[in-house]
C-alpha cells in the first residue's frame, strides 16, 4: 500500500518535461473602429511547464507593453485549452517592471494550453499573439530537493546501520544523561514522601514531535510509578493528548500488573488557553504539593512560571524541551534539564534496548557531517572572500548547494 503510488509512478519517465515557446510581437500603435488609440500590446510571451510539480502548474512570462505604466490599467491573462476558446484567467496590475510573470496552477495535467496577454487602458484592450501550446506534466521527483534527500539517506542510513551493529551484539558507548538517570530516584522520592508526581507534557498537540517524545517518556515513567505504587497526576491542555496519555498510562499499569490502580482522572483536560492552563497547573502545584515535577515537551512563556512555582514548593524538577528559547529558564530553575536532542533520545535511553541505543549512535554521524560541513564551508568562504582564492569558490558553492533548502 505504501508503495502503490510508487509502482504507478515508476511507469512514468523520471525526467523534467520542459516546453519553451516564445511569441514575438512588434510594438505598433493601432487605432480601433471608433478612432481611439489602443495601447501597445505586450510582447515576448514565454510559457513553460512548472518544474517539479504534479502537472497542474504552468509558468507564464511576458515583456511589458511599451505604454506601461503610464496610461494602462493592467494586463489580462487569457487561456485556451486545446483548440478551445480563450477565456480570461487572471488580471495583473501594472508595476512599471520590464517583465512580468504569472503562475497558472488551475490547469489539468496532460492537457495542452495556449496563452494570450492583453493590455487594458482607457483606449481599449490590445492583445498579444497567442503563445505556442504547452502541456502541464508532472515530475516524479523534485530534483530541487535532491540534496536534502541525500543528506536524509546518510543520516537515516547511519541510524539503521548502527541499529544493525547493536543487534549484532556490539557494545556502543552512550554518555550518561543525568536528567534521565534521576527519573527513577525522583519517582522514589515522591513515593517516600507520599506525594504525587506531576507530569506536564507541554502545551502543544499530538502533531508536535516534542509532545510525542513526552508521551514515550510518560510510558516509562508511569511504569515506574505503577511499580512503586505511587500517584501520577497529569493535567493536559489538549484533548487529543488527554486520550493518548490515558491509553499510555493504562497500558503501563496493565504491564506492571496493577490495572486496578489506574483511574481515568489521572489525566484530565484543563484548557487550550496557554495561561489559563498555567494558572490551573500552578494551583494544582500549590495545593497538592507534588514531590516531583516533570516538564517534558513543548513549552513557551509559561516555562519559567511553572519552574519557579515548582521551586517554591520544594519539588524536584526535571525538564526537557527542544525549544532553545525556553531552555535557559529551565536550566536556571530546574534540577535537571534535558537539552534538545536528549528529549528525543530519552525513550531509547530509558529502554536500554541495544537496538534503540544504536539509533542514538546514528545521530552522531549526522552531527559529524554537520560539523565537517561547517568547518569546510566556513574555511572555503573565508579563503575566497579574504584572500580572493577563487579556486575555492567551487567548494563554497558546492557546500551552499548541498545544504540549501531553496
Amino acid at each position, binding site marked *: 500500500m505504501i508503495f502503490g503510488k510508487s509502482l504507478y509512478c515508476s511507469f512514468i519517465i523520471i525526467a523534467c518535461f520542459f516546453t519553451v515557446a516564445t511569441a514575438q510581437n512588434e510594438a505598433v500603435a493601432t487605432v480601433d473602429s471608433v478612432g481611439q488609440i489602443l495601447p501597445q500590446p505586450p510582447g515576448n510571451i514565454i510559457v513553460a511547464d512548472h518544474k517539479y510539480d504534479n502537472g497542474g502548474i504552468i509558468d507564464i512570462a511576458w515583456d511589458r507593453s511599451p505604454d506601461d505604466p503610464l496610461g494602462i490599467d493592467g494586463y489580462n491573462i487569457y487561456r485556451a485549452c486545446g483548440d478551445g476558446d480563450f477565456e480570461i484567467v487572471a488580471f495583473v496590475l501594472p508595476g512599471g517592471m520590464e517583465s512580468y510573470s504569472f503562475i497558472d496552477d488551475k490547469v489539468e495535467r496532460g492537457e495542452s494550453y495556449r496563452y494570450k496577454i492583453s493590455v487594458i487602458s482607457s483606449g481599449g484592450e490590445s492583445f498579444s499573439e497567442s503563445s505556442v501550446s504547452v502541456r502541464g506534466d508532472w515530475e516524479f521527483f523534485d530534483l530541487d530537493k535532491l540534496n536534502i534527500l541525500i543528506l536524509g539517506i546518510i543520516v537515516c542510513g547511519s541510524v539503521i546501520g548502527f541499529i544493525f551493529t547493536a543487534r549484532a551484539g556490539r557494545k556502543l558507548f552512550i554518555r550518561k544523561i543525568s536528567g534521565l538517570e534521576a527519573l527513577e530516584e525522583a519517582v522514589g522520592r515522591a513515593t517516600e514522601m507520599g506525594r504525587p508526581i506531576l507530569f506536564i507534557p507541554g502545551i502543544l498537540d499530538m502533531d508536535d514531535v516534542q509532545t510525542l517524545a513526552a508521551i514515550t517518556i510518560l510510558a516509562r515513567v508511569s511504569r515506574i510509578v505503577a511499580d512503586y505504587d505511587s500517584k501520577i497526576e497529569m493535567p493536559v491542555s489538549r484533548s487529543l493528548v488527554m486520550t493518548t496519555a490515558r491509553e499510555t498510562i493504562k497500558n503501563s499499569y496493565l504491564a506492571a500488573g496493577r490495572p486496578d490502580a489506574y483511574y481515568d482522572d489521572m489525566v484530565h483536560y484543563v484548557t487550550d488557553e496557554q495561561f489559563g492552563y498555567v494558572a490551573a497547573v500552578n494551583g494544582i502545584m500549590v495545593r497538592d504539593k507534588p514531590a516531583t515535577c516533570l516538564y517534558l515537551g513543548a513549552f513557551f512563556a509559561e516555562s519559567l512560571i511553572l519552574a519557579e512555582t515548582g521551586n517554591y514548593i520544594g519539588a524536584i524538577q526535571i525538564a526537557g524541551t527542544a525549544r*532553545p528559547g525556553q531552555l535557559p529558564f529551565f536550566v536556571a530553575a530546574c534540577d535537571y534539564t534535558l537539552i534538545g536532542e536528549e528529549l528525543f533520545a530519552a525513550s531509547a535511553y530509558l529502554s536500554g534496548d541495544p537496538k534503540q541505543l544504536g539509533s542514538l549512535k546514528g545521530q552522531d554521524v549526522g552531527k559529524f557531517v554537520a560539523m565537517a560541513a561547517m568547518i569546510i564551508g566556513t574555511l572555503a568562504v573565508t579563503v575566497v572572500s579574504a584572500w580572493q582564492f577563487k579556486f575555492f569558490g567551487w567548494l563554497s558553492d558546492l557546500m551552499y548547494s548541498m545544504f540549501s533548502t531553496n
Partner: protein
Amino acid sequence: MTNIGVYISLLLIFGGLLAILIYSLKGRDVDRRIIFLFVLFSVASAIIFHIEFEESATPIVKKVFEFVENLPPESKILISFDFDPAMKPEVHPMANAFVRHALVKGHKLYLMGLWPQGQALMTETIEYVLKPEFPNAVYGEDYVMLGYKAGNEGVLNVIITDFRKMYSTDAHGTSLDSIPLFDDVKSAKDMDLIFPVGGGKPGPKEWILFVGDPGNVPIAPGLAAVVAPLIYPYYPRQAIGLLGGVKGAAEYESELKKNYKEFENVETPALQMMGPQTMAHIVIMAFIVIGNIGFFRARRRKWQEGN
C-alpha cells in the same frame, strides 16, 4: 525626569536596595517576596511618574522601516496577528505602528491570523488605530480583514499556492472575488512584504519556513523578546529585519515619530513601556549583584571556618 516623584522613587528604590545589601551581608538569603515587592515598586513608579527615555533604532529594526519606506506605493503587505492577549502588551504596539506606517505610505493591507485570539486583536487595531487615524481608508480597497483560520502551518501550506482554497470569504463573509484588493492576488507569493507578529507557534518562524523561504517573499517578523533569538539565524536572508520585544516596538515607534510629523502625538505604548522595563532591569541587576556579594561572603566564611 524632573518630576519630584521620580527622585523620591529612585531614592526609595536605591535606599531599599542598600538595606537589602546590608541584610544580605549578614549571611541571610533574601525572601523572594521582597524581590517581588521591589520589582512591583520600580515598575509602578516608572508608570505613575511617566519615566520615559529617548530611543534610536538599531540597524535590524531600521532595515524593516527602510524596506517599507522604499516599497513602491500601493504595495501589498500582509500582517498576521499570531498572538494572544498575554503577548499583546509586547507585540500589539509594533503591529499598530506598522499599520500606521504602511497606510501613511499608501500601501494595501491584508490582515489575517493563525491564532484564534488574533482576530479580536486585529479588530482592535482596525477600530482603535486604523479607522480613527485613517478615516479615508476604504475597506476592500485599502485594507481587508481575512480573519482567523484554524490549521496552523497547514494554512500557510495552502495560502502559498492559493488564498481562496483557505479563505473563500473575508472575516465578514464577503467573497474574495468581490473584494478589489484580491483582483490581482492569488496567493501569499503576490505579497510584497509579510509582517507576522507573534512569538508562539504558529508564528513568525513558521511564516519564514513555509511562506517566506519557499515562496521568496520578504518577511519582517515582529516578535516577543523571548523568541527573538530563535529568529536571528534567519536574518538577513530570510528575514529582512526584525522587531524584537518592547524595545523593537519602541524603536519602530520612535522612527515613525521622527519621520512623520503627523504621528508626533499618537499614543506610543512601547516607548512608554521602556521606562518601567529599564527600572525593572536595574532592580534585577542590583539583586544579582547583591546575591553574588552574599554568595562570595558565605563562601569566604566557609573557607575561613575550614582553615
